[in-house]
C-alpha cells in the first residue's frame, strides 16, 4: 500500500538519463581543465595519432625522394630536416605519448583505482609534452630566427655533436629541437613518476604485487627506466644550451669539447628508450594473447623476472651504438656481450607467449591478428638485433639501411602492430563501441603487406653498402630497384593507416555497442561499464587472484587455487 507514495525529495534523486546538450566551449573547457586519467589518456592518444600522421607523411616524402637514384624531389636541406623531424616526432611525440595514453587510461582501471596518484601532475605532464611537440613544429616558422625565413632542425634525431654547435647549426632550429625534447622529457618524467606512485600505492584490496596484471608490471619497469634514462638526456640538453648560449665547451670540439661525450649521454638515454617503447607493447601482448587464446599467461613469475631483467640489462648496452667510434677491443667486446645477453630474457618472453597459445583455443579477432604479427616480427627484429650486437657485423652494418630496417621492425613491426592490436582490444572500453572487424581485417592485411614490402627489403640495400641519412645515391651501386620497392610499400602502409583512421571514425558513430566485457576477458577494467564512469568503480573491487573476472565467471575453479 505504501509503495505508491512518493517521498517529497524523490525528484532530487533522479538523474537525467539524457544529459543536457552542452555548448562546444563547455565541452572544450571540460577537456582542457580535466584531471581525469581517462580523459588525459585519450588526449595523449589523440595527440600522438595526429603526430603519427604528420611523421608518417614525412616518411612518405623521404621515400619519394629515395625511390630513384639522383632524385631532385626535395633539396638536401629539406631531406635532412625531414628525417630529423620524422625521427624526433616518432620517438618523442608519437611513441611516448601514445604509450603513456594507454597506460594512463588503463592502469587505474586494471588495478581497481579511481584515478592516478597525482591527477594534477598528470594534466601538467600531458600539457607540457604537448607544448614540446608544438614547439618542435613551430621551428618550421621560427627556426632561422633573424637569419631567414625559418627552418626545422636538420641535425638528426640523435643530434651528434659538434653538428649542433653554433659553428655548424646557426639560427634557432637546433634550439627548438633542444627545448622541445627537454620539455617533453619533463612531461615524461612526471607521468612516469605518477605511474610508479599509482602502481605502488593505489592497488585495490587484495592486489598484491604478485597479483597485478603483467600490464602494470611492464609499465612499472618502463617508468623506472624513464627515471634513469631521461635524466641524462635532460642534462645533456641543458649542457648543449649552455654551449650554444653561454660559451661552455662540453660538446664544442672547436674549443676542446668532446663529441664522444654527447654520444654517451645520448645513448644511455637512447638505447633504454627503445625498451621504454617496447615494454608497453609487451604489456598489451601480455593481456591480449591470453584472452584470445582463452588461457592464463604461461609463467607469470618468469615474465615478471624477464621484464625486470630487461630493465636492468638495458642500462648496460648503450655503447653498442658506438662500435665504430673507436672505443677499443675491450669495450667493444663488453657491449657485444651485454647486448647479446638481453636476448635471453627477451627470448623467455616469446617462449612464454608461445606456451600461452599452446593448448589454447585461439580466436583470430583483428586484435589477435595484430598480436600474431607482432610475435613473428618481433622475433625477426630480435634476431637481426643479435646480428647487430656482434661488433664486427656492426662495423659493416651500423649506420646502414640494415640498421634502419632492424629498428623499424622493432618500432613498426612490433610496437605499432601491438598498438593497433591494443586499439582493437580497448577501443570498446574507451568508447563503448566495437571497432569494425571487417574494416579491421582489411586494415591488417594491407598494412601487413606494405610493412613487409618496405622493411623486409630494406635490409638489402644496407647489406649492399647503403648508408642511412643520404638524400640521394649513385645509380651504379645496385640499390635502385630495392629502394623503389621499399617506397611503394610505404604507400601501401599509408593506405592501411587511412583505413584504420576511417575505422575509428566510422565505428565511433556506427559501431556495434560493446557492453562492459565484449571479449569475455579477465582483468578489472572489463568489470565496469564501457566507457567507464568518471569514478571508474562504484565500489572499489577486492581481488583474490591475477584474474578476478575469471574467478567471478568460474567460481567452481578460481585461479586463487593455483597461485
Amino acid at each position, binding site marked *: 500500500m505504501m509503495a505508491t507514495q512518493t517521498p517529497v525529495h524523490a525528484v532530487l534523486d533522479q538523474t537525467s538519463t539524457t544529459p543536457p546538450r552542452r555548448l562546444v566551449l563547455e565541452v572544450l573547457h571540460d577537456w582542457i581543465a580535466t584531471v581525469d586519467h581517462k580523459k588525459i589518456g585519450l588526449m595523449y592518444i589523440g595527440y600522438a595519432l595526429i603526430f603519427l600522421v604528420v611523421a608518417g607523411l614525412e616518411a612518405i616524402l623521404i621515400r619519394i625522394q629515395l625511390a*630513384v637514384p*639522383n632524385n*631532385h624531389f626535395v*633539396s*638536401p*636541406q629539406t631531406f635532412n630536416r625531414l628525417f630529423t623531424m620524422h625521427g624526433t616526432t616518432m620517438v618523442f611525440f608519437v611513441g611516448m605519448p601514445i604509450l603513456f595514453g594507454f597506460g594512463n587510461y588503463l592502469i587505474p582501471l586494471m588495478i581497481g583505482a579511481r584515478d592516478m596518484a597525482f591527477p594534477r601532475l598528470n594534466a601538467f605532464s600531458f600539457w607540457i609534452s604537448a607544448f614540446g611537440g608544438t614547439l618542435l613544429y613551430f621551428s618550421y616558422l621560427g627556426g632561422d630566427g633573424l637569419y631567414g625565413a625559418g627552418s626545422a632542425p636538420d641535425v638528426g634525431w640523435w643530434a*651528434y655533436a*659538434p*653538428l649542433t654547435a653554433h*659553428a655548424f647549426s646557426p639560427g634557432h632550429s637546433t634550439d627548438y629541437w633542444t627545448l622541445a625534447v627537454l620539455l617533453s622529457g619533463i612531461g615524461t618524467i612526471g607521468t612516469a613518476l605518477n605511474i610508479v606512485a599509482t602502481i605502488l600505492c593505489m592497488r585495490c584490496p587484495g592486489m598484491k604485487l604478485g597479483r597485478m596484471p603483467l600490464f602494470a608490471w611492464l609499465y612499472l619497469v618502463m617508468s623506472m627506466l624513464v627515471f634513469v634514462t631521461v635524466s641524462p638526456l635532460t642534462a645533456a640538453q641543458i649542457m648543449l644550451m649552455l654551449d650554444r648560449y653561454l660559451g661552455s665547451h662540453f660538446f664544442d*670540439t*672547436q674549443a676542446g669539447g668532446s*663529441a*664522444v661525450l654527447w654520444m654517451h649521454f645520448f645513448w644511455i638515454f637512447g638505447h633504454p628508450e627503445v625498451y621504454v617503447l617496447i615494454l608497453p607493447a609487451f604489456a598489451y601482448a601480455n593481456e591480449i594473447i591470453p584472452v584470445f*587464446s*582463452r*588461457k592464463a599467461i*604461461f*609463467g*607469470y613469475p618468469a615474465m615478471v623476472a624477464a621484464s625486470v631483467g630487461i630493465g636492468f640489462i638495458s642500462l648496460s648496452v648503450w655503447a653498442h651504438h658506438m662500435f*665504430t667510434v*673507436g672505443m677499443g677491443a675491450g669495450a667493444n*667486446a663488453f657491449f*657485444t656481450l651485454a647486448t*647479446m*645477453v638481453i*636476448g635471453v630474457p627477451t627470448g*623467455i618472453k616469446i*617462449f*612464454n607467449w*608461445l*606456451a600461452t*597459445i*599452446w593448448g589454447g*583455443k*585461439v*580466436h583470430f579477432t583483428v586484435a589477435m591478428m595484430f598480436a600474431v604479427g607482432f*610475435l613473428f616480427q618481433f*622475433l625477426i627484429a630480435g634476431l637481426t638485433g*643479435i*646480428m647487430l650486437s656482434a*661488433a*664486427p*657485423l656492426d*662495423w*659493416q652494418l*651500423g*649506420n646502414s639501411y640494415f640498421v634502419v630496417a632492424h629498428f623499424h621492425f622493432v618500432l613498426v613491426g612490433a610496437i605499432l602492430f601491438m598498438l593497433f592490436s591494443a586499439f582493437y582490444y580497448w577501443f570498446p572500453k574507451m568508447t563503448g563501441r566495437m571497432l569494425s572487424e571487417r574494416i579491421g581485417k582489411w586494415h591488417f592485411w594491407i598494412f601487413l603487406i606494405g610493412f613487409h614490402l618496405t622493411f623486409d627489403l630494406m635490409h638489402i640495400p644496407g647489406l*649492399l*653498402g647503403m*648508408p642511412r641519412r643520404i638524400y640521394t645515391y649513385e645509380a651504379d*651501386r*645496385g640499390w*635502385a*630497384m630495392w629502394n*623503389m620497392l621499399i617506397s611503394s610499400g610505404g604507400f601501401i602502409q599509408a593506405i592501411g593507416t587511412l583505413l584504420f583512421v576511417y575505422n575509428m571514425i566510422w565505428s565511433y558513430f556506427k559501431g556495434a555497442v560493446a557492453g562492459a566485457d565484449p571479449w569475455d576477458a579477465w582483468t578489472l577494467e572489463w568489470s565496469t561499464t564501457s566507457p567507464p564512469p568518471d569514478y571508474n568503480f562504484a565500489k572499489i573491487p577486492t581481488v583474490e587472484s591475477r584474474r578476478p573476472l575469471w574467478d567471478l565467471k*568460474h567460481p567452481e575453479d578460481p*585461479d586463487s587455487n*593455483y*597461485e
Partner: protein
Amino acid sequence: MPFHPWPPILATQVTTGLGGSPTSIFNPAGTPAHSVFSLSMLVLGITSGIFLVVAGLLLYALLRYRHRPTDENALREPAQIYGSNQIELSWTVIPILIVVMLFLATARVIYTTEHAAKPTDSLDVTVIGHQFWWEYRYPKLGIVTANELHIPVSDPKHPTPTYLTMSSADTDHSFWIPRLAGKMDLIPNKVNTMWIDPQAAGLYLGQCAQYCGTQHAKMLLRVYADTPTEFAAWVAHQRMAATQNVAVAQGRAVFEHNACISCHTIAGTVATGRFGPDLTHVASRDTIASGSVPNSAENLRVFVDDPAHFKPGVLMPPMHLDAQDLDAVTAYLVTLK
C-alpha cells in the same frame, strides 16, 4: 638527370644481382671484410636456425590450437596451465649457451682485427674528414691529396696493409669501404686507426657513413689498390711540384688573384690554403667534387662557376668569375696533372 627511366634500372639490377653491387659486403676483398663476412655467415646460420624453430612452433601452435566453432567443446574453456619451472629453466639455459658461443666467436674477430700486428711493410696514411670531402696525407712520402686514396695492393703471402690514422676537421664522419673493411668514425679531437689490405688491384667504392651535414650524401670514397709498380709511379708523380706551363699563365693569375688561394694549395705556387682539397695534381684524379662527377674540363668549369650545382651545401662559395676568367682558370686546372 632528375629522373631515371625505370625499366633500364630494373634490367641492370637483375643482371648485377646482389653480389654485383660494387659496395656489397657479400663480396669481400680484404682481410677485415673477409673475417666479418665469415662471422656474419655463422651468426646468420644460428639466427636462421632459431627463427625456423621458434617460428615453426608458433605457426604450429596457432594452427593446431585455433578455435573451431564446430567442435563439440567449442564453448568450454581450454585447460588452464599456469607455468612450469623446468620448462622455464630449459629455455633460459639453452639461449645462454648460444650467447656464450656467439660471444666467443665474435670476440675473436674483434681482437684479431683491432689488435692485429702491424707488419713493417705497411703504409701509413692520415685521413682527415672535412665537410664534405676527404683529405689524405702520406706523412712518410710527403704526399697530400684528396678524395681518391691510392694504396698498394696487398699480397696475402707478403701483406702490405695500409694503416689509416683518422680524425676530423669539423663534424663526425665515417670511413666505409664495404668490400675492404667495416667502418671507422672520424671524430674531431679524437684519433682513430684502422687498416685495410685490398687483395686484388682495382677501384673500391664507399662513402661517408656518419651524417655530417647538408651534403653528407655526396661525400663519396674511392680507394685505388695499385700494383707495386703503379703505386711507385703514382707516388713519384705526386711528390713533384705542380706543372708550370706558360700557356695557361692567365688562368694561374686568375687563381692566384682570387680567394682560391685562401683555401687551396698548389705546391710550388703562392696557393697554400688548407681549408679545401689540395689541387697540386687535381687533373690526375678521375673525379671531382668528392667523387660525384667525372673529372672533365666541362665539369670543372661548372664546379668553379657554381660549386653547389653538383653538391648543394658545399662550403666553397661561387667566385663570380666572368666567362673569360672561368675559361682561363679551367684551362689552368686541367694542366695540373
